[in-house]
């Protein structure tokens, strides 16, 4: 395609580009962006949330200004095509895109149709499309999924379909906007493999990302944006040599799993709940043994089934599990291990059996719905009221509810936003509103479903701090996560899940941190 491009000429060339959104809510504008990317090269765009890196990807695939309206200055060229002026379908011949949210980027309901979608739109010859689809299906190992409805796939599988669909049109430039946000370690490793293949096949790759560890060794240029401008540029090697303190100062996540384990928070393992810290201080007796005041929360015979082709299959089987009260347990494990099913069963939200015992009280499924609380991955599903304060008051009882609500909001640093509409807040603030709901109704157990997906370092730490604060209020917490930095910054225990069972549990301390490291490293390279 497009044989007119000179050998060695940049595939993507941005020259002093600025873009400002017409509506203020669509994203952060950028100014003075210059960037040149050759075939087979990868440029990584990084920076804090709202620094404008997503906007740069939108400029490269033409969505800005053709979909996200606004004013653009400067020139963006892909293989010579003026993307800011060309129509989107012209750009689509040269650029393939993969977006952040796997569930909202597919148009078809079947996998095959989705992989072929781009080629069909561009009017390729059907025989040619067949060949391209077959190639992409082989390359991304989709053959077992071809007959499935996309709605039945996991997030990681959907993202693989998205990559295959982007590959099928043989793009000269592949643009990825935070593609790993919703993925687990195993799928991230596959994403890395896909990127390697794109580079080898001579495509240029532009990635905007917070979680950058999986790009270790792949980036040829690293561009750091701050408030819409390029603040730093490094070559891949320079970036790898950057010292940790500098990286953390810039608000960047770990560059590799090794980085994550050198993470400064590690020194604070099981740290700052003074009232009971004597048992948890770095690397000593497990918390379980040394806590007489309150009996642990105990789950018994927790099982859940899901229906597959009319028959029931066991998705969760936990004969017994104890969680110390006021602990924070990281629930880790590969995709499809049953972590979400476990979380739903704990909160009594799915078809499940079994009981939970807390302070001598046995809770069945219905009781758990009132006593446990889940902070969902998409927190928008649980925001109902017209103001933050109303949201917290909804379901509270007692004459002093107004007082208590305000005090909870203060604790969560939301008091200034009490009258704001929950949906007008930032993602992190919304998450804290959901946590406020749990605190307002005195839930002894709070479960979080991937609370740090797609967060930069500062926001991840903020979540960790909130969780430590909730812990100080004696609530027990379970966190489903794929984020080693996060586990090290606020969790006290680790539970590993495999095939619907809890394979292992251990308190997190200096020695056991290495077991966690092994776990994550095992996924890091396929």
């Amino acid at each position, binding site marked *: 395609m497009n044989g007119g491009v000179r050998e060695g000429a940049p595939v993507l060339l941005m020259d002093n580009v600025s873009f400002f959104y017409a509506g203020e809510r669509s994203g952060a504008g950028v100014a003075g962006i210059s960037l040149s990317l050759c075939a087979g090269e990868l440029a990584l765009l990084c920076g804090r949330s709202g620094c404008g890196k997503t906007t740069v990807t939108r400029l490269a695939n033409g969505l800005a*200004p053709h979909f996200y309206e*606004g004013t653009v200055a400067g020139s963006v060229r892909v293989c010579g095509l003026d993307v800011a002026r060309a129509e989107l379908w012209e750009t689509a011949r040269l650029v393939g895109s993969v977006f952040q949210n796997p569930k909202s980027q597919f148009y078809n309901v079947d996998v095959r149709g989705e992989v072929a979608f781009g080629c069909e739109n561009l009017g390729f010859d059907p025989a040619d499309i067949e060949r391209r689809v077959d190639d992409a299906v082989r390359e991304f190992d989709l053959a077992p999924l071809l007959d499935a409805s996309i709605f039945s796939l996991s997030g990681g599988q959907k993202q693989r379909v998205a990559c295959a669909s982007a590959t099928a049109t043989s793009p000269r430039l592949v643009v990825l906007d935070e593609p790993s946000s919703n993925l687990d370690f195993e799928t991230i490793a596959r994403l890395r493999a896909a990127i390697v293949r794109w580079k080898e096949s001579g495509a240029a790759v532009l990635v905007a990302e917070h979680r950058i560890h999986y790009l270790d060794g792949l980036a040829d240029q690293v561009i750091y944006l701050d408030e819409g401008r390029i603040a730093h540029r490094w070559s891949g090697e320079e970036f790898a040599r950057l010292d940790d303190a500098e990286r953390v100062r810039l608000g960047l996540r770990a560059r590799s799993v090794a980085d994550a384990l050198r993470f400064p928070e590690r020194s604070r393992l099981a740290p700052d709940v003074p009232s009971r810290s004597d048992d948890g201080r770095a690397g000593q007796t497990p918390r379980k043994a040394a806590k007489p005041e309150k009996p642990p929360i105990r789950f018994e015979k927790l099982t859940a089934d899901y229906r597959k082709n009319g028959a029931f299959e066991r998705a969760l089987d936990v004969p017994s599990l104890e969680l110390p009260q006021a602990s924070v347990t990281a629930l880790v494990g590969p995709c499809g291990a049953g972590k979400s099913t476990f979380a739903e069963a704990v909160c009594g939200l799915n078809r499940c059996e079994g009981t939970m015992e807390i302070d001598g009280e046995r809770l069945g499924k219905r009781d758990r719905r009132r006593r446990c609380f889940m902070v969902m991955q998409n927190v928008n599903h649980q925001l109902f009221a017209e103001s933050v304060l109303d949201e917290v008051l909804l379901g509270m009882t007692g004459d002093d509810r107004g007082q208590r609500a305000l005090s909870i909001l203060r604790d969560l640093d939301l008091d200034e936003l009490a009258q704001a509409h929950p949906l007008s807040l930032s993602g992190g603030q919304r998450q804290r509103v959901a946590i406020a709901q749990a605190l307002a109704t005195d839930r002894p157990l709070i479960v979080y479903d991937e609370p740090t997906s797609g967060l930069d370092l500062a926001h991840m730490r903020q979540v960790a701090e909130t969780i430590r604060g909730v812990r100080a209020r004696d609530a027990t917490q379970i966190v489903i996560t794929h984020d080693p930095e996060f586990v090290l910054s606020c969790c006290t225990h680790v539970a590993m899940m495999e095939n619907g069972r809890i394979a292992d549990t251990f308190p997190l301390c200096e020695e056991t941190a290495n077991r966690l490291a092994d776990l994550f490293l095992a996924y890091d390279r396929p």
Partner: protein
Amino acid sequence: MAHNSTAPSAAAKTGDRLGGKDLINIGIFTAIYFVVVFAVACLGFIPILMAAICGIIPLIAGIPYMLFLTRARKFGMITILGLLTGIIMFITGMGYFSIATGLICGLIADLIWKSGGYASASRAVLSHGVFSCWIIGNFLPFLITADTYLPTVRAQYGDAYVDELMTYLQPEMYPVLLIACFVTGIIGGFIGRAILKKHFERAGIA
């Protein structure tokens, strides 16, 4: 600087033609609109409520409709919404009269919305009143096919049932139903505007 030029905005470029974004929006809002209609219509399986759903559907359907109008800035979008709603009603077995009423009411509602420059709040409410009249299409089979349909029913279920049914579905009931659709459509329009202000505008998605 030579490269310092401003690209025309997407709206200006596509002009009044419906672009891909508009068409996808129509599909999405038809889905939301239909889900609301269908959820309410399930109440209508109880026959005494069947006529009453005429009045209930527009009260709630005004919410997605008003949010849709914030995206409908070109002529034709409401017409297509009406047509598609009719087609979906047909597919789910409500007969094909809704396709015609959806198209006609959609077209008039579109003209009303356009006459307000796609911004007038009162035209938006009026537009929803007119649009809601498509619902009458679901009842037309009883009127138009009464001669062939009723004897069949009478033979199957007996006179008592048919007589009871006909007290609700006399031909003179239809203008009443139509007016009910329109009036509740207006009320639903106000409800939709209120929710728009209360939630969607503050959330920044309106």
